[in-house]
């Protein structure tokens, strides 16, 4: 086994390594774990020569809640609220990934109306997750105003989802085999009214910040990720599409009722900088919100009128031991994958959740050589990493 890289560790007793770095003339800074802009509890060990970084090593695990081990102890139905916490900003998707994996284990179908409810809830959640992402990114760059604007719009979505399932953040809305509640009466009109209002706000948002000179100067040409590197490090979601790779799970491996809808997949084109730079990642998310509005309108128009929102699910879900299933969904942060191996009783034997933020953290060390500290903040924000997804 080759000697591991000499990196400063959390072990505070190992002052020798720290001292060697400091003697070389570089500064060793801790950015985090409590920091206004590391998108959750993440620590970065930054070795800098003044403003310019030599290395930025992420240290994660502060939010590790052993969700995968809990999956081995919970019944399949009972695990659904835990999946909310895998990514509490885009909780519907985590719910859907789990539901799809267990439904594949059971080999069951979900009623059509339930699928439409799932799509509506998920696309609304995608918009609210992207709002947080672009709002906090703008705030990290220094423009504080887009953040309350994004939150204001997110409040409307929170109200809509609260009306739907009773919760504003961790929804626990999906169930194995369907959804928990049907759409309330008058819901279609409320969502349509929100979409009419929101699409104009997106234009205002673009006027305010997306095409702002200073914003572009900060983000254009920042950490451009070539498509091959993005694929090698397994970046997913808007990060991958900003690098020009045309892959969206909803189009490439369609699930649920997405084949019924027409929508575009925004790809990074290097409009103001290089293809795959931080501005492209930002812009991809803004455009995805627009596409989600399109999907929502179509979903509301095509909503089936039958009433079944749950399929035939046994009371106690028991699956033969060793059955395994894999589900992939397009979460707000990319391709979220669940690998579930069924256990002997009513629990799973192993649950592995592969999230987009986890692999995105792996690329930060490689990209951060030669960046400035302000750029590191912008880079983390543009990759849209959230601590719960990384640590689970």
């Amino acid at each position, binding site marked *: *086994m*080759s000697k*591991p*890289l000499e*990196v400063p*560790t*959390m*072990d505070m007793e190992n002052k020798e390594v720290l001292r060697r770095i400091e003697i070389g003339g570089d500064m060793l800074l801790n950015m985090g774990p409590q920091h206004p802009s590391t998108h959750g509890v993440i620590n970065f060990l930054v070795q800098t020569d003044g403003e310019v970084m030599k290395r930025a090593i992420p240290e*994660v*695990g502060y939010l*590790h809640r*052993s969700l*995968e*081990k809990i999956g081995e102890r919970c019944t399949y139905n009972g695990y659904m609220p835990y999946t909310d916490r895998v990514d509490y900003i885009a909780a519907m998707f985590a719910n859907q990934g789990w539901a799809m994996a267990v439904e*594949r*284990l059971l*080999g069951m179908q979900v009623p059509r109306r339930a699928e439409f409810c799932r799509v509506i809830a998920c696309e609304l959640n995608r918009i609210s997750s992207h709002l947080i992402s672009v709002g906090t990114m703008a705030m990290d760059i220094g423009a504080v105003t887009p953040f309350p604007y994004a939150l204001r719009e997110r409040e409307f979505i929170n109200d809509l989802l609260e009306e739907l399932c009773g919760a504003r953040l961790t929804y626990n809305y999906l169930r194995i085999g369907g959804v928990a509640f049907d759409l309330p009466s008058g819901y279609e009109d409320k969502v349509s009214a929100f979409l009419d209002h929101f699409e104009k706000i997106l234009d205002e948002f673009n006027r305010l910040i997306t095409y702002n000179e200073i914003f572009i100067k900060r983000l254009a040409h920042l950490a451009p990720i070539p498509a*091959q*590197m993005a*694929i*090698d*490090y*397994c970046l997913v979601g808007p990060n991958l599409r900003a690098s020009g*790779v045309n*892959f969206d799970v909803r189009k*490439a491996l369609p699930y649920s009722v997405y084949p019924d809808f027409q929508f575009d997949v925004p790809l990074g084109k290097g409009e103001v900088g290089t293809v795959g730079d931080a501005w492209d990642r930002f812009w991809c998310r803004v455009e995805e919100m627009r596409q989600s509005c399109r999907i929502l309108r179509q979903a509301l128009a095509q909503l089936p009128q039958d009433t079944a929102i749950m399929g035939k699910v046994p009371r106690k879900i028991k699956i*033969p031991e*060793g*059955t*395994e*299933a*894999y589900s992939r969904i397009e979460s707000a942060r990319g*391709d979220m*994958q669940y*690998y579930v*191996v069924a256990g002997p009783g009513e629990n799973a*034997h*192993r649950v*592995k959740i*592969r999230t987009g933020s*986890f*692999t995105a*953290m*792996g*690329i930060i060390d*490689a990209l951060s050589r030669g960046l400035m500290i302000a750029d590191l903040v912008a880079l983390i924000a543009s990759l849209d990493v959230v601590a719960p997804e990384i*640590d689970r």
Partner: protein
Amino acid sequence: MTFEEIQQRLAAKFGERIGALAPANKDPFLVVPAADIVEICRFAKEDEALAFDCLMNLSSVDWPKKNQIEVVYHLWSYRRRHSFILKVQLDRAKPEIASIESIWKSANWLEREQYDLMGVTFTGHPDLRRIMMPDDWVGNPLRKDYAEQPQWHNITTTRDNSLEGYVRLDELTKKAAEAAAAAKKELPQ
């Protein structure tokens, strides 16, 4: 390409070392010998027909009854849009396997996670250290026989059970009524 075609292509290249595809218990997979994993993965990435340019997922599953730890590799090809599942079965007492970080960079963090949580050692990994747990943690949490140490740096890992000595109110009143009835029966009459 379907799972069968991929397995045939691998068998054509590696012959005896590639067994048969496991039957689809929802998802079919291929078990390969641990010693050949690097070679097989490199071929899977560089072969034009397979072109697996992405290691989607790397997990490990603990099977104490079979005395094995399985490492599961989920491969995906963006160019050909097909996926595949490779499995390696390691001895539970000493789970060691070569690292494929030199083939796919995403394996760097994924292997570190399994090293940390399951205790699988990946030889040849450039930076194998714990990722979720603190660096001086003892034990591998995802193992089935994992017992948490009682304290870490003088912070206890257990809390007192707040339900100890807890009696529900209706049981309490029932007990009090029974005690009163028993006391009344014992009163000398």
